[in-house]
C-alpha cells in the first residue's frame, strides 16, 4: 500500500470527500461509518491528487518496498492556491518544500 490513510485525521468531509472525487482511478470510497478507504490499495498510481485536496492532511504517499521504499512520506497542504509539501525522511526529519 503506498497511499497512507490516517484514520484519526479523516473527518469524512460531510459525506462528500474531495479525495474520492478526484482520484483518477475511482479507488477511494467512504463507507457508511469510519474513514475513507481504498478499495484496491495496490492499484494506487501515487499521483498525489487526493493528498493535495485533503483539508485534514489525513493522506500521505510513500514508495512501496517493491519499489525501494524505506518509509519516507509526502503530505501536501494548499496554502493560498499554492502547495506546501512536507517530506518526512525515514529518520523522522521533516522538510517543507513550497511549490
Amino acid at each position, binding site marked *: 500500500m503506498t497511499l497512507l490513510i490516517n484514520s484519526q485525521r479523516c473527518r469524512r468531509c460531510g459525506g462528500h470527500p474531495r479525495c474520492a472525487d478526484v482520484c483518477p482511478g475511482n479507488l477511494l470510497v467512504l463507507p457508511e461509518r469510519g474513514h475513507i478507504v481504498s478499495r484496491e490499495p495496490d492499484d494506487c498510481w501515487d499521483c498525489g491528487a487526493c493528498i493535495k485536496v485533503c483539508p485534514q492532511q489525513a493522506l500521505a504517499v510513500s514508495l512501496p518496498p517493491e519499489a525501494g521504499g524505506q518509509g*519516507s512520506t509526502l503530505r501536501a497542504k494548499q496554502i493560498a492556491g499554492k502547495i506546501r509539501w512536507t517530506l518526512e525522511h525515514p529518520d523522522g526529519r521533516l522538510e517543507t518544500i513550497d*511549490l
Partner: protein
Amino acid sequence: MDVLDTDWLILGGGAAGIMAAIRAKELCPTCRVTVIEKANVQRSGCLAAGINAINAYLNPGETAESFLSYVKAEFANLVRDDLVYTLAERLNEMTDRLVEWGLPVFRDEQGRYLRRGRASVQINGEAIKPLMAAALHQCGAEVLNHRVATDLIVIDDRVVGALVLNLADGSFTAVRAKGVLIATGGVSGIYGPNAGGAARHKQWYSPFNAGTGLAMAARAGAELTSLEMRFIALRVAHTMAPTGTLAQGVRTPHINRLNAHYLNDYTYEQVAPTTAERLWATLQEEKKGRGPCYLDTRGLTSEQGERLQKAYLSMCPTQVLQWSDAGKRPEEMPVPITGSEPYLVGGHGMAGLWIDERRRTTVTGLYAAGDAAGGAPKKYVTGSMAEGAIAAETFFNEIQDWREPRPDAWQIAVCAALQRARQPLEPKEDSTKGNCENNNKSQIRRLEEQLQAVMDRWAGGRPAGYEYDAKGLLRAQQEVDYLIEAGREIKASEAYELMRVHEVWDRLLLARLLLAHMLYRQESRWPVYQSRLDYPARDDQRWRIFVNSRIPAQNTVTKIDLEIIERPPVDSHGRDGQTALSSFGGGAA
C-alpha cells in the same frame, strides 16, 4: 433508461477532450457539448500529477515543417506527415491558451517561454489539469464525471451516440449525439508492470487508461493503425518517473555501472541518438552486464538539486521519495534508469485510431484525438489539444449531414449495447454476496495478470528484452484467445467492478489486435519499440507502409475475426483535408 441528447459527445476529459469541448463552444455557443469522464476532469488521466514541460512547442526558429522533419527522423521516416504538420501548426496557439488559463511558465530575458529542448519549454505544471478543468467548466460544456462509455451506438454504419455507465449508482444512460469524439487516451496494462505487489501500478503511463475508446471504436468497425509500434519509455527505475527533466532540464549524462559514458559507444542512424536509440543503448548496456545505467546528477549544484525536487513534485512526486529513502539529495546520487513496460499511446508513439487530416476515423460520425489517435507521435499535451480543436472544427463543418436515427433502430442498437454492457452483472450461483465481491475482484485482477504474463513472455515484454518472433506471437495469440473466452465468465456485483471487467475485456481485445499487427510487419523498423528476432533488419522497400487493422462489425460478439489492411505512406500535407482522406482508398491485404 435515461436518454440524453447532445450535439458533440466527447469521450474522455483529458487534454484532447477538454480542448475539443472548448473549441466547440467557441464555434457554436448554443450547441450542446457533453464530456464523459471516467474519473473527474479535475485530476483525471495522464496529467493527474501535473507536468513540468510543454514538450511540443515551436521555439523561435522552428516551423511546422521543421517539427515534422524532427518527428520523421525520430520515427524511422514513417509518420503521417499530414497529421503531424496540421497539429504542429497549432502547437503555439495551444501553449498560449494554457498560459491564458493561468499555467505558470518560465520566461527568458526576452520574455519568451524558456526553452528546455528543441521542441520543449519549461513550465510549472502541477496544476495543469485543474486549470484545464476550470477552462472547460467556464466554456459552458456539460461535464459528466465518474461515467464510462461501454460501447458506441452504431446505426447504418454511422456512430450516433454511446452507452454510458454511471459509476456512482450503476445506472446506464443512452447518449444520442450528432458526433462522437474518442479522446480516451492510450493503453496501459497489456504488458506487466516493472514491479509487482503494491508497486503494480507504479507505472509511467496512467494505469487507468485501459484503451476503452480504442476498443469500442474497433468494435464499431473503425480502423486502427501501427499498434505494432509500441511505445517503451526510458524511465527512472522503481518510480517510473520521466527522465526528460534530468536529461533535457539539467543535461545529466548517461553512465553505466562502471561510470562510463556509454551513449557515444554506439552508432546511430544520424549523429545524435533518437529517443528510441537512447533506450536501445541503455538496454544494450544492461545486456552486456554493464547495467544498471544511470543519469548522473552528481556535480549538480544544491540549487539545481532543489529545482529538480520541485520539478518532480510538479509531475511525479514519488521521485522525491526515492532520494529521501536513499538518504541522499538529488545532486548526491545518480538516478537509475531502465525501460518501462510497453504501452500503446498515440501521443508518444504511432499506435491508435486511423484518422484523416481532419481527425475523422473511418466510421462516419466518429472522430479521434490525442493519445487515442495514431500516426502522429510526439504530439504530447499541446498536440493532443490541437487535435481536439481540429476535430471540433471538422464536426461543425459536417453537422448538417446528420440525420436523426430511426427510433426503432435506435432502440434495437441501445438494447444490444446494454445487454453486452450488463452481461457480467448476471448473478452468480452458490455464492453469498460478500464472498462474491472479493472473488470477483481477484478474478478480474487474475485475468489481467494472466494477459500480462502471456504478453511479457511471448510478445516482447520487458522480461523478453522487448524482442519477439513469429513462433512466440502465435503462441501468444492462442493463449489470448483462450483468455478472451475465459473472460466471458467473469462477474461483477457493482458498477466499479463492472467497469473493471470491461477494462480487462478491452485490454484483451486490444492485445489480440496488437499481436496481429506484430505478426504482420516482417521487419524491425523502430528500435526496441518494434524489434523482431526473426526479421532483424529494417526493410524500406517492402515495409514503409502503415499496418492497419479492422474488425468487421458483424463479428464482434462471438468471435474476433480481424482484417489487416496496408496503407501507403502519407508524405504530403495538403491544407484542404483531402490528402489523407484519399489514402482511405488503400486495399485490404
